[in-house]
């Protein structure tokens, strides 16, 4: 055959698949590289330049993007409004300078201040002095918290006394009041002392302002950092990004709730979809008669995988939230009506909707696995007096488990990356509370949740035009990829283990 082919045909037969594979690999790699490089810049330390331009009354401090292009984007700190502004202008080399002594101050609310100079307690800034001030401040905060924990039960008792109509003149009342008064006095004293730790910030226009240490989260000098310090700082930024709360107001903030919401939703989805999917596949493959009705069902299940995901979202909204949820509210949560408990989007409905979405994947993968189990194995079990159920439970299912896990991997990957249906059934851009907390019953299935994909969607369309909105979008993309990949790797390792165990029997 091959000998009779012309050299051109032979060349094509070998090279076209090769080129196709290479192109595919290249495009995958470039997507990954783009997301990684763009996402990493979100955590990088950007230098702060001093920019002089005719549109500024005095030179300002700012970050510069696209320097060297016709128009340069600068995100500059307005010393009068005390806010970051963005402008686009033509800049020449003479107009920007880099000063070593430039400070970036991050407040506890996530706002950034760019400063020319910084004094700590009338002394120039030094790292040791700043660390000492921070420690002191933290000690104060801790003491105030301790006082608060003492004050709270006393105030509760105070409220109980007034409810029981104990006259204010009663001695218990007086004693309580005196006690409270001293505690409050202590607290005020501490707060006053904490406020005394101040920094003096010098802005780019020369003006200075007092700023209490208690409001500062972080200070760094981007222009004076060494490479190692920058790396360390970036890692810190990344850690803060994935562990701290999301603050919708300030824009730049952590995404821990979204990370948590994504993982929890995927977990719940797996809990719902795996038993139902596997049982359905077992019924279809092992028990169902071989007739047109059953093959019809099989065709329908396979085609379910092709339905647009938004349709599932609408379906979930209609059936689960408006139908089922409203019914549950009327029966079990009537005292809360008209404010709904389950009759509103929430993580339970989101994960059930996603479970429906991924059900065909699990069923098809499991059936494939069941098909691969040799019939002789079933017969062996049956010949030893096993019932059909026992043969399936002890022999067939373990052998099919690698394929079942493949189904799980595929469904996890799909559920973690879908956004459209989630917008309808429970994911929100900002949720004030996590679905899991320390209040009974700990897991609050009725709550709305945040999701990485939804945050990306949001940052594309509605984000404030701040300097880091774009890089934040890529950073979230990067994180989403990391989450999906690590869930997949986990399942793949498990599957490889099971495969090794069973491959010699089939």
């Amino acid at each position: 055959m091959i000998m009779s082919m012309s050299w051109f045909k032979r060349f094509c037969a070998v090279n076209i698949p090769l080129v196709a594979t290479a192109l595919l690999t290249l495009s995958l790699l470039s997507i990954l590289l783009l997301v990684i490089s763009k996402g990493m810049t979100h955590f990088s330390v950007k230098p702060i330049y001093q920019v002089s331009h005719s549109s500024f009354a005095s030179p300002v401090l700012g970050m510069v993007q696209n320097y060297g292009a016709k128009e340069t984007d600068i995100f500059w700190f307005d010393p009068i409004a005390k806010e970051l502004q963005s402008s686009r202008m033509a800049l020449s080399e003479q107009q920007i300078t880099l000063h070593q002594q430039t400070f970036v101050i991050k407040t506890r609310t996530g706002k950034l201040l760019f400063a020319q100079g910084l004094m700590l307690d009338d002394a120039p800034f030094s790292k040791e002095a700043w660390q000492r001030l921070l420690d002191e401040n933290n000690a104060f905060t801790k003491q105030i918290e301790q006082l608060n924990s003492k004050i709270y039960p006393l105030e509760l008792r105070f409220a109980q006394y007034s409810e029981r109509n104990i006259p204010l003149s009663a001695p218990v009342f007086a004693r309580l009041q005196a006690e409270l008064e001293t505690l409050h006095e202590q607290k005020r004293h501490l707060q006053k002392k904490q406020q005394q730790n101040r920094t003096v910030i010098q802005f780019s226009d020369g003006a200075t302002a007092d700023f209490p240490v208690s409001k500062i989260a972080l200070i760094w000098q981007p222009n004076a950092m060494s490479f190692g310090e920058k790396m360390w700082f970036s890692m810190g930024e990344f850690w803060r990004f994935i562990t701290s709360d999301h603050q919708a107001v300030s824009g730049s903030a952590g995404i821990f709730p979204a990370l948590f919401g994504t993982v929890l939703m995927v977990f719940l989805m797996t809990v719902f979809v795996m038993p139902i999917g596997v049982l359905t596949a077992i019924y279809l493959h092992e028990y169902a008669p071989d007739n047109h009705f059953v093959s019809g069902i099989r065709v329908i299940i396979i085609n379910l995988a092709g339905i647009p995901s938004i349709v599932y979202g609408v379906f979930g909204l209609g059936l689960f939230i408006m139908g089922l949820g409203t019914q549950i509210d009327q029966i079990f949560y009537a005292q809360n009506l008209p404010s709904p408990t389950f009759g509103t989007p929430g993580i339970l409905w989101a994960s059930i909707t996603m479970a429906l979405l991924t059900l065909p994947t699990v069923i098809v993968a499991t059936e494939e696995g069941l098909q691969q189990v040799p019939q002789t194995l079933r017969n062996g079990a049956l010949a030893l007096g096993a019932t059909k159920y026992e043969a399936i439970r002890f022999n067939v299912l373990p052998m099919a488990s690698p394929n079942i896990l493949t189904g799980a991997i595929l469904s996890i990957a799909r559920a973690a990356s879908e956004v459209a249906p989630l917008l309808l059934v429970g994911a929100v851009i900002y949720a004030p509370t996590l679905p899991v907390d320390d209040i009974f019953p700990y897991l609050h299935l009725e709550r709305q949740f945040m999701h990485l994909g939804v945050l990306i969607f949001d940052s594309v369309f509605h984000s404030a035009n701040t300097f880091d909105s774009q890089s934040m979008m890529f950073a979230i993309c990067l994180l989403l990829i990391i989450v999906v990949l690590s869930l997949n790797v986990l399942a793949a390792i498990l599957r490889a283990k099971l495969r090794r165990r069973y491959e010699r029997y089939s």
Partner: protein
Amino acid sequence: MVKLFKSTKPALKKLTAEDISVEISDLSVYFGKKSVLRDISMVIPKHRITSFIGQSGCGKTTLISSMNRMNDLNKNHRCTGSITIDGQNIHSKKINVAKLRTQVGMVFQAPNPFPMSIYDNVAFGLRLQKQIPRRQLDEAVERALKNAVLWDEVKDQLFASASILSGGQQQRLMIARALALKPKILLLDEPTSALDPLATLHIEELMQTLKKNTTIVMITHNMQQAARLSDYTAFFHQGELVEYADSDKLFTQPKHKQTEDYITGRYG
């Protein structure tokens, strides 16, 4: 031919009711429209080895699978006639099929170890019966493995995966697995077809010991094996029982031309 006179086994027609383990009468089996067995009537004597010989596809496997109702698994299967084991019709509605299969053990042509340890393979049938304490289970597994002449080879690796065993060892494991349930009847479908001479010898010796308290039905394509091992031999041809007699008689003085042709290797 000295052996013939020393033999203490009764002729098939002179068997008393106590000596009969399985009685098959007018059994016909169909898969869909295809008739696989036609009007088989025979008795299988208790605590003896009975060999089934015949061409591939003549219905031997179908017949032994009828005895523990493994044919029921085929959806197109249909049968008429009756099989009586120890006086009970196994097609009666009162019969618990799972229970029947624990008493009529079956070893398939190709070893099919379960994906678990050697110990678990042997304990599988017993565990399904529940209510067996751990220590008793250990003893039962050891006894079954010793009976199957496998114990010495696997006693140090009982909890290793069964797939590490060789083909012959796996075949003996399959026998041990069936023996663990102490079946009254053991059905063996070409137990030595894939084994080397030494492993074959092991299994033949094993069958000689087992026959003291188990009825053994064996399918084989090896004439010498059938002649030296079994007490009675049945020859099947295209779904019909052609000749069934004492092995010595069948192999020395076959009554039918077909039998003679087959055992002398003129066809098949």
